[in-house]
C-alpha cells in the first residue's frame, strides 16, 4: 500500500439541491497514488460527490482540500483548480467537431498556452499511453465507445492532473469494450496516479482499488480496504447491496 499522504481531503461536505439533500456530511481522505472506489445504489450521492471535487457543483457547506488547497473557497480561480483535477465522464463528452488529437490539444493550447507543435507532441504521447496512437486523426464518430472513453482519459491526462476522477466510466459501454478501459485505468494506477472512481465494476474494485467507500442516501455507510468491504462488510445495507450487485 502507498504511503498515506492525503492529497484529497473532504471534510463534512453537504450539498443541497432545492430541498433535496444530495450529500449529508461526507468526510473522506485519499492518499497519493491510491485508487478510491465509491460504490452504492443510484441516487446515493456518489456522482454528486465527484462533481463537487471538480467544482462542477458547489457544495453547500464543508471543505475539500486538494494537495493542501481549499477548493471550496468562494473566490478561487476555478479554471486553474480544474486543470489540476482530471475528470472522465460516463458519456465520454468528446468534442464531436474535433479529431481525437484535437480533443486532447484544445486545453493544452487554450488553457496552458502551449504552441501547436508542443501540444501535438503531448497529445500523441498521451494517446499512445491509452493505446490509440494509430487513431489520432479519427473523429469521435469513427471510434468505438471504448476508444472514445480512452481518448477522453488521454484528454484529462494531458494536463498532468494531481487527481483523476472517473464518473461511471464504463457504464455506457458494451460489455466487450469495458475491459480495454479498465486496463488503461489499471495501468494509470501502476504509474502512481491518484484516482477516485464511481463505478459498478465490483470485480475491478476488488482487484485494483486501495480503498472502497460504500455510500447510501448522501452518507458514507462504510469504508475500508476492498477485502474488508467485499468479504466482511459490517453494515447490513452494505451486505444487501453487494448481494444484489453480484447477481
Amino acid at each position, binding site marked *: 500500500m502507498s504511503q498515506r499522504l492525503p492529497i484529497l481531503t473532504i471534510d463534512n461536505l453537504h450539498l443541497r439541491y432545492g430541498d433535496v439533500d444530495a450529500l449529508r456530511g461526507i468526510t473522506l481522505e485519499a492518499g497519493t497514488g491510491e485508487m478510491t472506489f465509491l460504490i452504492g445504489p443510484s441516487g446515493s450521492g456518489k456522482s454528486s460527490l465527484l462533481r463537487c471535487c471538480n467544482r462542477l457543483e458547489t457544495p453547500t457547506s464543508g471543505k475539500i482540500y486538494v494537495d493542501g488547497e481549499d477548493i471550496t473557497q468562494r473566490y478561487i480561480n476555478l*479554471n486553474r483548480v480544474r486543470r489540476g483535477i482530471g475528470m472522465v*465522464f460516463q458519456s465520454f463528452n468528446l468534442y464531436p467537431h474535433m479529431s481525437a488529437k484535437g480533443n486532447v490539444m484544445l486545453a493544452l493550447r487554450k488553457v496552458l498556452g502551449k504552441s501547436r507543435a508542443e501540444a501535438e507532441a503531448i497529445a500523441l504521447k498521451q494517446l499512445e499511453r491509452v493505446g490509440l496512437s494509430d487513431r489520432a486523426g479519427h473523429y469521435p464518430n469513427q471510434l468505438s465507445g471504448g476508444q472514445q472513453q480512452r481518448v477522453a482519459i488521454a484528454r484529462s491526462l494531458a494536463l498532468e492532473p494531481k487527481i483523476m476522477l472517473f464518473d461511471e466510466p464504463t457504464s455506457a459501454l458494451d460489455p466487450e469494450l469495458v475491459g480495454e478501459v479498465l486496463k488503461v485505468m489499471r495501468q494509470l494506477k501502476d504509474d502512481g496516479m491518484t484516482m477516485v472512481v464511481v463505478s459498478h465494476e465490483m470485480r475491478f474494485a476488488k482487484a485494483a482499488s486501495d480503498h472502497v467507500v460504500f455510500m447510501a442516501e448522501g452518507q458514507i455507510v462504510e469504508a475500508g480496504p476492498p477485502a474488508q468491504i467485499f468479504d466482511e462488510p459490517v453494515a447490513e445495507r452494505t451486505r444487501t447491496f453487494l448481494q444484489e450487485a453480484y447477481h
Partner: protein
Amino acid sequence: MTRFDRFIDTFFKPEVMQQYWPDIVSGLFVTCQIAILVIVSGISLGLALAILRSYGFKVINLPIVIFVDLLRALPPLVLILILYFGLPNLGINLSGFLVLWMVLTLVLAAFAEEIFWAGILSVPEGQWQAARSTGLGRFQTLIYVVIPQAVRMTVAPLTNRTIAITKNTALGMVIGVPELLNQATTAQSFAANATPLMMATIAYLILFIPVVYAGRRLEKAYAWRRH
C-alpha cells in the same frame, strides 16, 4: 401582331432592355451592397447577443428577449417608415440607404440571435462539463467547443432566414433607395412597358436562386437535426 409578339413586346422588348440595362445593373449593385452589409452586421450582432444571453444575467436577458420578440412581430416596412419619416422631425436626417440597412440588420440580428441561442441550447450539457473540467473558461468553452457545434446545427435555418430578410432589400423602393426594384419601377414608368420589371425579376433570380439552392442542400445535409 401575334400573341407571342405581344408577349415579347410587353415583357422582353429589346429596345427597352438596351436603354435601361445600365440602370438595372446599378440597382443590382446597390441591392448587393445592402445585402452584404446586412448579412455581415446582422449575423454578427445576432451572434454577439446570443453569446451575451448565454451568460444568464437576468437584467440583460430580458431586454434581449423583448428586442427579439419585437422585431419578430413587427413588419420591417413599419419600422422603415417610422425611422425614415419620424426621425427627421427630431432633426435626425438619415438617408434611405442607412435606414434600410439599420432596420434589416436589426431584424436579421433578432432572428439570428434566436437561431444561435437554440443552437447553443442544443449542445449537450456534458460538452460544457468536459470543457470546464479541463480548465477552459466560460468564454473559451463557448468559442472553441459549444459554438462550433451550435453553428453546424444553425447553418440551414440561418441560411433560409437570411435569404428571406435579404430579399427585403426591395423595401428600399418605398423610401427611394436606388436598389434593383426601385430602378425597375422607375424605368417601367418612363418606358411605359413591363420589360424593366421582368429584367429585375430575372436579376433577382440570378442573385437568389443559387442561394436558395444552397439552402436546400444544407437543409438536406442537416436534416437529422429534426429527429
